C-alpha cells in the first residue's frame, strides 16, 4: 500500500525503554503480575496458560507472505507464524534458531548452516535443508514478486543442499550484514508444500514453523493465529522455548486512533499498537494500563533532498534550508517529548552511529537568508525569493494517510521556510509510488527504514547504475560510493565505524538530508497481560505472553 516503506527491515534495536505507568504504585499493589519484559525474569510464579489476546494493529498488513510483503505491520504478524535461521539479540550478536550452528568460508562468500532436526512446519511438512533452499530460491525467483525480502537477501546467489540438515549458501560478494538480515522475519522460512499448493495465494494461507499457526484472515479486520502445540525451538530472545502460553491471538485492525485507544481503555482488547504521542502522556497515568515503548534503529525519519533538481543540487541552497528549519520546534510540538530528535542519517542505536553530530546544526534564520542572498535569490514583493524571474520553490511530497504526523511536519516546514522566502509546495498523495518513485516529482520527500546495520545506507546514498531506479537522494559521489562499498565488507568493527562516521558527516555537512525523528514503537496493554517482549527490530514477540486469570 505505502511504497514509501521500501525498507529492508534489517535490524532494529531495542532500547530498553519499557515505560511503565506508575511503576512503584503497581508493584506494591500488584506484585505478582508486574507487567514488564524486563522484570519477567524475577517472577516466581509460572505464567498462566490459556486465554486469547486481542492485539489491535493500526493498519492492515499487505499480505501474510513474508517474502512478498513490504510493510512493517505485516512483520508484527509474521513473527508469530514464521521462524528464521538465526536470531539477533539487541547487542547485535547472532544466535541459533532454526540453524544450530554455522561456518563462514574464509573469503566470506559462503555460509554453511547446520539445521535443527526436530522442527516441523505447521502443516506437517518436515523442516530441512530443502525447505531452506526452497525459501531463498523462491525470493530470488521473479515470479514470486518478492518485495523487501529481495533487498534483504542480497548478495545471496544459490544454495547447495549438503545433506538433509546441512545447507551451504553462496553469496556473490562478502557481506557483513548477511547474518543479521537472515534473522529477519521477511526472510522467514516458509513451508514448501503450502507455498507450492497456494501459489500466489500463499499470503492468504501462510504456513511456517512459528509458535502460532495461522487460522484465518478477514481482510481489513481480523487475523487469527492459534498456539502451535508442537513448538519447542524458540530462540534466545524469549524465555519460553516451548509452545506459547496463549491459546490464540486475534490481530484486529483498528485504523481510527480514538477507537483504538478507546478499545484498550475500555478493556475490549488486550493491547494496541502505535499510541499517538498526545495519548502516550495520558495513558501513562492510566492505572489500568501499561505502556511499552521501543525505539527503532536504522534510518530515522529523514527528509531527502532530490539532488538532481535545481536549485537544490547546490549544497549551499540545501544548507540554507537546513538553517531555516527548526527541527526541535517540530519534534517538540508534534511529539510532545515522546519521540527523540534525529541528528544523523542513522538512528542512535544503530551500529556506527556518530554521536558527534548531535547538536551540530542549530537553526539560524539569518545565516539561511545570507546563504540564499549569496546565491542570488532575492525576496520579491510576496516575500518569496526570485532569481532570473523564477520563484524559489521547494516541492515537498508526503504520503497519505497522515502516519506519525508526517503531514504535519510538512505543514510546519512550510511555515518555517516561508520566513526564509522559500515557497514550499506541499503535495500530499495517496500515490507515493507514482509521484516519488516513477515521476521523481519531488524536491523533498521523507522516509524511514527500520534497520540495525548501516549497510542500509547503500540503498539511499550509493550512486546507481545507469537505467536503474534512482535512490531517494540521487546522491552520486564516488568517494561516498567507495566508503559505502568498504562498509559492506569491512570486518573490523573499529574501521567500519570510522567508515560510517565519514559517511554520516558528509551527508549532514552537505545537507543531503534533514533527519527528523527516531520512531518509537509503542504498545499500550491492559495490566493482566505479561511477558510481552520485542526482538532486536522492535517487533513484538508473543512466546512469553500470558494473561492473568
Amino acid at each position: 500500500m505505502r511504497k514509501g516503506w521500501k525498507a529492508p527491515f534489517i535490524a532494529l534495536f531495542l532500547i530498553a525503554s519499557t515505560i511503565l505507568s506508575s511503576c512503584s504504585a503497581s508493584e506494591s499493589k500488584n506484585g505478582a503480575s508486574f507487567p514488564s519484559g524486563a522484570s519477567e525474569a524475577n517472577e516466581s510464579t509460572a505464567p498462566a496458560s490459556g486465554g486469547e489476546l486481542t492485539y489491535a494493529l493500526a493498519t492492515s498488513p499487505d499480505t501474510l507472505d513474508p517474502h512478498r510483503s513490504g510493510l512493517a505491520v505485516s512483520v508484527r504478524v509474521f513473527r508469530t507464524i514464521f521462524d528464521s535461521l538465526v536470531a539477533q539479540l539487541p547487542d547485535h550478536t547472532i544466535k541459533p534458531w532454526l540453524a544450530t550452528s554455522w561456518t563462514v568460508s574464509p573469503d566470506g562468500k559462503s555460509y554453511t548452516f547446520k539445521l535443527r532436526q526436530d522442527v516441523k512446519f505447521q502443516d506437517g511438512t518436515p523442516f530441512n535443508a530443502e525447505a531452506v533452499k526452497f525459501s531463498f530460491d523462491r525470493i530470488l525467483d521473479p515470479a514470486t514478486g518478492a518485495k523487501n525480502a529481495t533487498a534483504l537477501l542480497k548478495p545471496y546467489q544459490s544454495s547447495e543442499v549438503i545433506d538433509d540438515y546441512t545447507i551451504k549458501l553462496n553469496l556473490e560478494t562478502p557481506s557483513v550484514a548477511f547474518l543479521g538480515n537472515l534473522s529477519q522475519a521477511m526472510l522467514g522460512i516458509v513451508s514448501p508444500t503450502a507455498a507450492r499448493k497456494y501459489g500466489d495465494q500463499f499470503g492468504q494461507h501462510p504456513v511456517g514453523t512459528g509458535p502460532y499457526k495461522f487460522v484465518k484472515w478477514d481482510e481489513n479486520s481480523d487475523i487469527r493465529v492459534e498456539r502451535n502445540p508442537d513448538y519447542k525451538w524458540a530462540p534466545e530472545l524469549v524465555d519460553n522455548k516451548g509452545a506459547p502460553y496463549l491459546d490464540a491471538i486475534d490481530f484486529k485492525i483498528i485504523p481510527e486512533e480514538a477507537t483504538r485507544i478507546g478499545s484498550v481503555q475500555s478493556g475490549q482488547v488486550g493491547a494496541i499498537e502505535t499510541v499517538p504521542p498526545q495519548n502516550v502522556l495520558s495513558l501513562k497515568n492510566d492505572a489500568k494500563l501499561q505502556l511499552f515503548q521501543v525505539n527503532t534503529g536504522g534510518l530515522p525519519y529523514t527528509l531527502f533532498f532530490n539532488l538532481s533538481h535545481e536549485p537544490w543540487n547546490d549544497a549551499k541552497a540545501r544548507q540554507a534550508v537546513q538553517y531555516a528549519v527548526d527541527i526541535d520546534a517540530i519534534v517538540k510540538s508534534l511529539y510532545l517529548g515522546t519521540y527523540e530528535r534525529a541528528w544523523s542519517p542513522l538512528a542512535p542505536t544503530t551500529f556506527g552511529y556518530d554521536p558527534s553530530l548531535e547538536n551540530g546544526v542549530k537553526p539560524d534564520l539569518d545565516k539561511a537568508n545570507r546563504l540564499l542572498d549569496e546565491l542570488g535569490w532575492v525576496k520579491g514583493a510576496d516575500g518569496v525569493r526570485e532569481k532570473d524571474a523564477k520563484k524559489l520553490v521547494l516541492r515537498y511530497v508526503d504520503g497519505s494517510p497522515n502516519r506519525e504526523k508526517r503531514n504535519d511536519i510538512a505543514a510546519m516546514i512550510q511555515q518555517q521556510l516561508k520566513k526564509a522566502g522559500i515557497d514550499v509546495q506541499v503535495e500530499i498523495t495517496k500515490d507515493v509510488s507514482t509521484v516519488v518513485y516513477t515521476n521523481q516529482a519531488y524536491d523533498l520527500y521523507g522516509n524511514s527504514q527500520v534497520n540495525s546495520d548501516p549497510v542500509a545506507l547503500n540503498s539511499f546514498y550509493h550512486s546507481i547504475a545507469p537505467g536503474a531506479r534512482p535512490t531517494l537522494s540521487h546522491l552520486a559521489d564516488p568517494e561516498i560510493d567507495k566508503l559505502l562499498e568498504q562498509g559492506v565488507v569491512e570486518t573490523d568493527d573499529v574501521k567500519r565505524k570510522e567508515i560510517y562516521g565519514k559517511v554520516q558527516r558528509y551527508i549532514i555537512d552537505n545537507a543531503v538530508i534533514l533527519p527528523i525523528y527516531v520512531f518509537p514503537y509503542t504498545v499500550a496493554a491492559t495490566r493482566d497481560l505479561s511477558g510481552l517482549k520485542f526482538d532486536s527490530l522492535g517487533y513484538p514477540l508473543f512466546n512469553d505472553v500470558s494473561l492473568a486469570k
Partner: protein
Amino acid sequence: MAKVIAVRLLSCLAVVAGSSVLVFCILYVLPGDVVMNMIDPSSMSPEAIANLRHELGVDRPFYEQFLHYFREVLRGDFGKSLVNSEPVLPKIFAHLPATLELAISASFVSLTVGLALGVLSAVHRNKPIDIAVRIVALFGISMPTFWSGILLILIFSVFLGWFPAMGSNGWNTLVLPALTLGMLGAGFIVRMVRNSMLEVLGEPFITTLRAKGLAERAVLYRHALRNALIPGVTMMGILAGEMLAGTVVIETVFSRQGIGRIIADAIMAKDLPVVQGVVLFTAIVYVIVNALVDISYAYIDPRIRRLHNDRRSGWA
C-alpha cells in the same frame, strides 16, 4: 398490477445498466493509469507492463472495455481486486452481513425515534417541546457522523464502559454505530413526519372528524398519523441509500467489517475494481429497495399510484 410490476422491473434493469455506465465512466475515463497504480514500474520491464496491460484489457478502446465489463457483470463477475486478486463479488457478500446489520438497526433507530419525536413535535406544535425536538433533529442532521461517532465512543466506551468501541461481532458492538447512523436518519424522519402530520391535520376531513366529536387521540393516531405515514414509505427508499452511504464513515470509525469499510480501504489502495464493484452493488440494492417501495406504494393506495405516475418522479 402485474403490468405495473413488469414495467417497473424493466426500467429497473435499464437504470442499473445506466448506473454501471456511470460508475465505469467515473473510474476509467478519469486521468491516471490503472496499471501504473498497480505495480512498481521500476521493478518490471516495459514488455511485462505491456503484457499486464493486455491481460487486464486496458489497452483496448473504452467502449470495448465497457462492453467486456458489462458482460462480466451480467454473468455475476465483478472482476478481481488489484491488491490481492480476490474476486470482488464474493468479497462483497462476505462483508454484507455486517453492513446489513448496521443499516437495518440504524433504520430501526431512525424510524422509531423519528416517528415518536415527529408526532410529538407536530402535536405540540410551536410549544417548547416542539422547539426542543426540532433543534435535536437539526443537530442530528448537522453533525458530521465521524465526529458524533467518536464522541459516543468516548462517552459510552471509555468513560462509562457500557458498550465496546469497535468490532462487528455481537449485538453490543452494534449499539454505538447504529445510534450514530440512526441519529442522522432520525433527524430527517422527524422533519418529514412533522411536516406531513401538520399537513394532514390541516385537511378538511380532520376538521370533520373533530366536528363529529371524535376523541382527539383517535383523530391523531387513527386518522392523521396513518395518512401522514404514506409518504414515510417513500422515505424508506431514500433512507436505504443514505444508510448504505453512511456506513462508509461509520464502519471506518467503529472498525466494522462491512462493505463501507471495503470501499474506504479500496479507495486508499486505488483498487478500482473493488470501488467499482461496491458502488455498483450499492446502486443495485438502492434500485431494488426503491422498486419495492414503489410497488408497495401502488399497492397501498391506487389513488396515489395514479398521482404518482402523473407526477412521474420515479421513486422519491
